[in-house]
């Protein structure tokens, strides 16, 4: 029986879609059968981040409205075995799907897939209600900024009110140089305010942008952010993994400078 995980944040632009793409790819690399669903009706993104935008035939709304069978709408990712994408509709609005319909769809998918990941739209309106309707657990994504943390706190409150049992936190785009000079909240600062378990912290890494440009999830690239995502995926499956040292880079140059700094 699979698990339905909603990736949500409240505020837009903090990295929900990138996180969904990477966790989806990462879990499939751990031999799990995964489906990622873009629930942002009208603003389809996940397919683009995954580099699968040219393979769309049908979408989530077509499946819900019975215009096609589920299998016809799924896009299989050739790079990752057992990873499937159900894209969103670009032309429909957020009322085209109801929470009840989403719940029914996800409960059917649980029989075939190990993980069903839902990329939630920003905001707390119907799109959010749809995305959380069938969720067993949630991953809340935030960045170390006042507005993003405030929104994340409200989202956690709403998820708790919906009786979602497990809510974990991802802090995205950490810049250790700024944390060190007291100009960016640290992982501990953010975790303390939100008071939910931390499942990962991702450094602000250019490789993420490069990956998004190419439609290639950063998780399969040699990078600090990729490593952070790989660890998050292992933690999602229940494995205990110690947290990365975000101070050190992965390149030879940053390793060298790190050694010099130490001395």
């Amino acid at each position, binding site marked *: 029986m699979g698990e339905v995980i909603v990736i949500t944040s409240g505020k837009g632009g903090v990295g929900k879609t990138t996180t969904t793409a990477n966790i989806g790819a990462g879990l499939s690399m751990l031999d799990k059968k995964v489906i990622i669903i873009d629930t942002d009706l009208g603003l389809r993104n996940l397919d683009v981040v995954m580099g699968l935008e040219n393979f769309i035939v049908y979408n989530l709304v077509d499946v819900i409205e019975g215009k096609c069978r589920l299998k016809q709408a799924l896009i299989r990712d050739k790079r990752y075995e057992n990873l499937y994408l159900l894209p969103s509709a670009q032309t429909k609005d957020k009322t085209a799907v109801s929470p009840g319909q989403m719940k029914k769809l996800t409960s059917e998918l649980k029989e075939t897939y190990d993980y069903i990941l839902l990329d939630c739209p920003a905001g707390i309106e119907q799109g959010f209600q749809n995305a959380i309707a069938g969720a067993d657990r949630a991953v809340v994504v935030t960045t170390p900024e006042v507005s993003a*943390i*405030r929104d994340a*706190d409200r989202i956690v*409150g709403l998820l708790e009110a919906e009786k979602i049992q497990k809510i974990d936190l991802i802090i995205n785009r950490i810049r250790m140089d700024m944390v060190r000079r007291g*100009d960016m*909240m640290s992982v501990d600062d953010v975790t303390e*305010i939100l*008071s939910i378990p931390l499942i990962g912290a991702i450094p602000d890494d250019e490789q993420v942008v490069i990956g998004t440009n190419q439609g290639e999830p950063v998780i399969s690239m040699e990078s600090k952010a990729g490593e952070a995502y790989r660890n998050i995926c292992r933690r999602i499956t229940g494995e205990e993994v110690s947290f990365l040292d975000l101070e050190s880079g992965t390149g030879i140059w940053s390793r060298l400078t790190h050694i010099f700094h130490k001395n």
Partner: protein
Amino acid sequence: MARRSSVRIAKDRLKVLVVSDRMKCKPEAYERISHELYQVLAKYIEITPEEFEVSYSRTHVHIRLTGEKQ
């Protein structure tokens, strides 16, 4: 460097925002709540303001009487 760390400011602002969101009240209201809770307790227990602290989680209001930092 005399400049106040911007993290300090961010955390202070967030504390106010998050608590008023959680309590669904204005920032002034929760300061008054804290003050009145102190007055009620001070009627029955010997405490000083330094030994008293109120914090708000999403589901609970916590009153600490020792004032000691955890």
